[in-house]
């Protein structure tokens, strides 16, 4: 058992709790860091029906095969990232969350073609919600995020400002987005988002 207190999230040093900046009493956007998710990168051939079935029974749900969609259970969330690539995200924050999922998936995959790689520590997650959340993202993301085009449950790999992200609309109510960013870019992206949100008013919440 590894000591949890030894872990540090990529945005911990910013002291997010002290950074809220309500403008004119309005808050068009709320942001928080959702650190320590488990993230496992999964590569498998989608036409390998045995592997897909084994993974389905291990996860309790089928991997999404429609581009840019997600599927979920109470304990795991699958993102379609490419024709043979998925992310399996677990809520954490236990340090074993990602590695354990990796073991589960690797066991299911046996020696079939594919790869299971724990990348939990490589990213952090930023949650963005509020009536201006969509406007905020549109400032730096070229995708069309209109509800007709990018409805609740969609995910996409794109760029936001000058960094790559994985975006997930978890609920149209709000709306509430989550985006996953490489940890070395996290500070830049957070500061960029804060700056972009200044015209809307920003609330920063604890995870």
């Amino acid at each position, binding site marked *: 058992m590894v000591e949890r207190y030894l*872990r540090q999230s990529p945005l911990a040093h910013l002291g997010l709790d002290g950074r809220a900046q309500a403008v004119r009493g309005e808050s068009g956007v709320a942001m928080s860091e959702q650190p320590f998710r488990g993230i496992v990168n999964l*590569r498998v051939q989608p036409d390998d029906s045995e592997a897909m079935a084994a993974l389905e029974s291990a996860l309790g749900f089928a991997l999404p095969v429609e581009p840019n969609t997600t599927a979920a259970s109470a304990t795991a969330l699958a993102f379609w990232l490419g024709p043979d690539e998925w992310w399996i995200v677990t809520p954490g924050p236990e*340090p074993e969350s990602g590695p354990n999922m990796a073991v589960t998936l690797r066991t299911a995959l046996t020696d079939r073609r594919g790869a299971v790689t724990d990348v939990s520590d490589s990213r952090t997650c930023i949650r963005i919600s509020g009536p201006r959340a969509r406007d905020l993202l549109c400032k730096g993301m070229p995708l069309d995020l209109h509800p007709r085009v990018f409805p609740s449950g969609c995910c996409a790999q794109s760029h936001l*400002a000058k960094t790559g992200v994985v975006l997930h609309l978890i609920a149209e109510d709000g709306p509430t987005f989550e985006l996953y960013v490489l940890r*070395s*870019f996290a500070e*830049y992206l957070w500061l960029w988002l804060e700056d972009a949100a200044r015209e809307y008013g920003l609330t920063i919440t604890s995870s």
Partner: protein
Amino acid sequence: MSQRYRLPDGGRIDRTAPLNFRFNGTALRGYVGDTLASALLSNGIHLVGRSFKYHRPRGIFSAGAEEPNALVQLGTGARSDPNMHATQVELIEGLKARSQNCWPSVDFDISAINDRLSRFMPSGFYYKTFMWPAAFWMRYEYIIRHAAGLGTAPTGRDPDYNDKTFAHCDVLVVGAGPAGLAAALSAARTGARVILVEQDAEVGGALLGLAGEKIGGKPALDWVAAARAELVESADVRILTRTTAYGYFDHNFVGLLERLTDHIVDPPAHLPRHRLWKVRAKQVVLATGAIERPLVFRDNDRPGIMLAGACQTYLNRYAVKAGQKAVLFANNDGAYATANDLAAAGVKIAAIVDTRPNPEGPHSERAESAGLPVLAGHAIVGTTGDKRVRQVRIARLNDDGSAITGEAQEVDCDLLAVSGGWNPAVHLLSQARGKIRFDEERGTFVPMQTEQATHVAGACNGSFGLASCLTEGFATGETAAKAAGLSSKSRRKKTPAASNETFLPARWTWLVPSETPLGRGGKHFVDLQSDVTAADLKLAIREGYRSIEHVKRYTTTGMGTDQGKTGNVNAIGIIADTLDRPIAEVGVTTFRPPYTPVTFGAFAGRDVDDLLDPIRKTPMHGWHERAGALFEDVGQWRRPWYYPRAGEDLHKAVAREVAAVRTSLGVVDASTLGKIDIRGKDAATFLNRIYTNAWSKLEIGKCRYGLMLGENGMVMDDGVTARLGEYQFLMTTTTGNAAAVLQHMEEFLQTEWTDLDVQLTSVTEQFATISLAGPNARRLLSEMTHDIELSPNALPHMAFTEGTVASVPARVFRISFTGEMSYEINVPASYGMAVWQAVLTAGERYDITPYGTEAMHVLRAEKGYIIVGQETDGSVTPVDLGMDWVVSKKKDFVGRRSLARPDMLKPDRKQLVGLLTDDPQVVLPEGAQLVERALPNPPMPMIGYVTSSYGSPNLGRSIALALVKGGLARKGETIFAPLADGRVVPCTMTDPVFLDPEGERLRG
């Protein structure tokens, strides 16, 4: 001065909200709703600037974006903007504006002497005069630019911020006049996502400047208000006013510039000043209206000479009389509306001069029945008045309009309204590669064909009547929505009735004759902003220019910031007449973005200062900062460069760090190294093809160094790869190349070797990497782990194992970039800081020394280890580096065939050598050129250059690496480095490994 040209009532200004402003220091007043131009005119001010080349007095010419003359410097200090159109600047309290291009003042401008000398300054004058001696051009250019400057860019830091955003829509409607509003309404009624863009502060377009227009039997502006209200209520409609569609690019990508705070006195800090919209529209409707064309006659540029439609707009929208005594000079019926409106407002109409022998049309008839003095078949042949037009000379035209007959008469006036017809604003259509054609009936270029998903409606389409604008607008909006995939029918409402009068009939006149030959005794201006005259155009043709594009460049017609919005069609007409060719054959010049100027700040947006580019930080970055490290940028990463202690400079700090590694223990944050997880049954085969050396026989738990080549055979990357399992490897790449290497390998997997079972996953950021180096490395590590066997037999050099370090799961690689015994500890990144701190604490007894990239470079140079990107530059092969030992002769790999090219086998290729200065204290500058023999002066044949150079504390002397022609075969020979300061440094070429060539230290 009171606003004595302001009407007592009417207009869209708010007389209860007066505003104070200053122009050239004079305190003036206007009202909310004014533009700077309308406020100036209300105060009787026409003279606002001096012309570009001749410094002639110039006045407000238009009421919109086409303004060529009234360019002003707005604001002061860092909030100052040059070249602002007074006709588009919204008046605000405290506004300060001043004239440009005049010194000492707009009333008395020394450079106005240029006007007198103009006979000696024809088009091409600068090119012809200042071409010799060629070396002086830079100096000439400086003086010319100074004299012909437009405004002045502010030098201070921008106090505002700008923003950018992406946007998507089904239908983008450009222009919110009657056609644009109608198009937006009908598109919105299908449920389409609509963006409606209007450069003005309010919607309505030309209707805002007209009096008495009716739509559906009610005042036209009532319909405008209702249309706007309906659009505002529509769910997916965005109305952007004060926003210019400045560019229409490929794939229906349209650039918009929104001005959010220019009209606010104290802009709130949280709002951006400008916002650049990058819009992807499924369909675009251009409803950009039309721009009035002036007439080209002698001395047609004096203040007080304005476009007729502009006079009408100032009167109806701003309640300003542009003069007390007006002359109208026109070739079409529509212009009479101006005379009629002016007369109704109490302006004396001194004359209506019409080139048409028989004025016809509804407006002409109204003028005649009102008893206005019409001179049919006449033309203005000259004007007088220095800073304001005072008098016009009017003469009868002959039958074909090519010359005047009889005596000219003089008529006094203080306003001359001119109209030569209307040009559809086809700029965006043309930017989008749409085609236009010359229409003889309407005497102008009209849209013919679109190349993108573009629709055109209203005056922009050559449909000038209000009823046509509405009909076309409603139809086009629905068509566009349908084309965007909206299936539901527009909740069709009946198109409201309106009149359909246009400016026709007209008689086209490109160049109005005068009493003296062209160019004598006065100037016929074609392009007011660039000061180009009809005589200049004819001179260009006499000198042999035929293509409109060449004439444009030679004379600079249409090349000002207004891009010839008012002048271009006249220029084409004059050129066509002179060449005696149809206008359609002469064609038009290219329309280029931006439609109106866009501030650089808008393009920069918030990508400035810390947000200019990401700064990538490792998990231990905060520790390095607290330890006082100085940093260097490696790609986007920020890495510790060295950690100076009190009183230390770079050299002292690096000498200490280097010595610590060789004598006891150093530690470096190597987290930035690229790490790629390679899995699959064919992983070893894949590595065989990607790297130059062989991988199949590498044992599990062992590491190997690899060189990666591009297809051209040149070194692209290097690094150590470990075999974690039968079917799993972990590759490391150089810090700056990680993304490029992954891309390179994915490309081969996805396009060339699709049969291979190999999966690549970047794990660069999954791990923090702490690299221990030095004789005490093993001792420290053994104190921090209880489950890793570290003996040289259990974990020899180039071996790998897993276990825990400081109670954290870790991968430990025994590999070395320093030549010392070295362990690279990889832990999950979120533990990086904790383990780093644990290492530093536990290492105190060994005087553990954190070292930066500079010390790392010295350490590896002592060992002759290359850095890709420093010893290589994309033109260096493994053979050039003396690294044939890592190139397999038995197997194929990327780049192999290129290595056999004849050029690769030449003996005089630049090759890597060590370089020792004869004087051990001299440290060569990196990049120093090397020569066989030093000559007294350059040039001298150069045979190579220094790639790395350091003072080596361990060797007690300087060392360098260099690429030298044929260097591998020349070790022991002396060459020279002639330096910029005049010293010539003799050096001896050696083997690049300066320290411990047997590698005993790193194996220990």
